[in-house]
């Protein structure tokens, strides 16, 4: 589903943010990417979204090399990759319903389909009763649920989450991780970049550890494993 072949990315300063990274994530997997600040986690997400181009190497998603995707084809590619951020990135002037519907509007989904699909997503993330609330009226956890609903409303095959629990307390962080796990159980491939090692340990999933742009370990966590 996701393959990186000897991928490097250097910014203008010259220090590589990613250095010769190769990895493969299968369809339906749940993968954590952990590492300190500056380890290259965010660069990895940006490369997977084709926000950045690798300096070297090849990235293949859903069987297609990102290098072969032309600028005009990027929007279509991104519709198959949902994304969630630490700071939620909701539209503050729109209510919960409109924030989720927005993701469908931008891809010209018919209004009838939007009206059918949004309530389903609201139920899935447990916010059916709050569809008229504005982001400022929601807790951090609730805002992140809206962001997840928005990321999934177009039924992408992959969900990328960049520090999705970074702004949340422990209780809400757990709720969000459980939700991501449920989403994964339904067949979506999930890649979560996080600092929260406590959750990573408890979730017992595949963990890729990065340090200074290099993958230093890639292991499936068992009961006795530690990160």
């Amino acid at each position, binding site marked *: 589903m996701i393959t990186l072949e000897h991928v490097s990315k250097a910014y203008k300063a010259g220090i590589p943010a990613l250095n010769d990274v190769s990895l493969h994530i299968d369809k339906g997997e749940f993968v954590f990417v952990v590492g300190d600040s500056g380890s290259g986690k965010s660069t990895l997400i940006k490369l997977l979204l084709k*926000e950045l181009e690798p300096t070297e190497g090849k990235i293949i998603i859903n069987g297609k090399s990102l290098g072969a995707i032309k600028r005009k084809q990027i929007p279509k590619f*991104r519709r198959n990759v949902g*994304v969630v951020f630490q700071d939620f990135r909701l539209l503050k002037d729109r209510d919960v319903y409109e924030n989720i519907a927005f993701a469908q*509007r931008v891809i*010209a989904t018919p209004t009838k389909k939007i009206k059918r699909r949004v309530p389903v997503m609201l139920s899935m993330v447990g916010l059916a009763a709050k569809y008229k609330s504005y982001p400022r009226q929601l807790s951090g956890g609730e805002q992140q649920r809206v962001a997840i609903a928005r990321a999934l409303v177009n039924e992408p095959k992959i969900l990328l989450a960049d520090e999705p629990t970074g702004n949340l307390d422990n209780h809400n962080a757990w709720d969000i991780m459980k939700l991501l796990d449920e989403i994964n159980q339904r067949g979506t491939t999930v890649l979560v970049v996080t600092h929260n090692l406590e959750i990573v340990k408890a979730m017992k999933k595949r963990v890729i550890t990065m340090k200074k742009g290099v993958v230093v370990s890639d292991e499936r966590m068992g009961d006795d494993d530690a990160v």
Partner: protein
Amino acid sequence: MRFSTFVYTFKQGVKNIWRNKIFSLASIATMSACIFLFGLFYAVVMNFQNIVKEVESGVAVTVFFEEGIGAERIEEIGDIISKRTEVADMRYVSADEAWEEFGEIYFEGAEDMVEGFETDNPLAESSHYEIYLNDVSQQSNLVTYLESVEGVREVRSSDLAANVLTDFNRLIGYVSVGIILILLCVAIFLISNTVTTGISVRREEIAIMKLIGATDYFVRSPFIVEGILIGLIGSALPLVLLYFMYSRLIVYVADKFIWLSNMLHFLPVNEVFKTLVPVALILGVGIGFLGSRLTIRKHLNV
């Protein structure tokens, strides 16, 4: 584009204007001022051109014939002249008519003196053609040609009048183009500023749109709608104002300055506005479109 997407885009364009109230109002106001000035200038130029045309229609070239020329040849010359493209109208004035006209002008109140010359017309060789031109700038061409026609003794024309009118027309043309260009630049700059502010306010939203797969077209469209709407409103308002001002002005001048309205004939309001309305609206919408399009290209990397 789906109808629902069109409606959504249009709504977003209107919302952009609303969110960005102060800048939008400033843009509409300045656009209105520009189109108002343009309209005012246009109305003045149209009236000037009308006056110039009226004066032009009075400028004639006079062709005198060689002594002893027969009536047949005079008629032939008339045919030759009437076929020229420069000629709008022409009139044959016989020697008797010429003497009559002369008498009316110079012997007013002493007509009996004219009668004394009944059998001996002092202007016996003064039969001529009076030629009126389509465009006075072509006068010198026609005069050169007429001088070469056999049987023509003298061609009289007022080069000064023709040159002044031609120069004046050209000046009006240059000034019009200059003013329109300045107004265009000012208006485009202002629309561009408004759209730039709109983009900076919505930068986060644009980034989100791009990340969830919005096409460039979808991202750009609301800003284009915003620019076009500002242009449309900004051109419609001054047109309404100008319409009432112009129609009132004509009535006022006709009422209060009868001497002026005898000299100058103002064009009727419909005559001016039948061209001004589409031109100003197209200009407004065009400026709005261009201003937003250029800004999007510059500030929106989509």
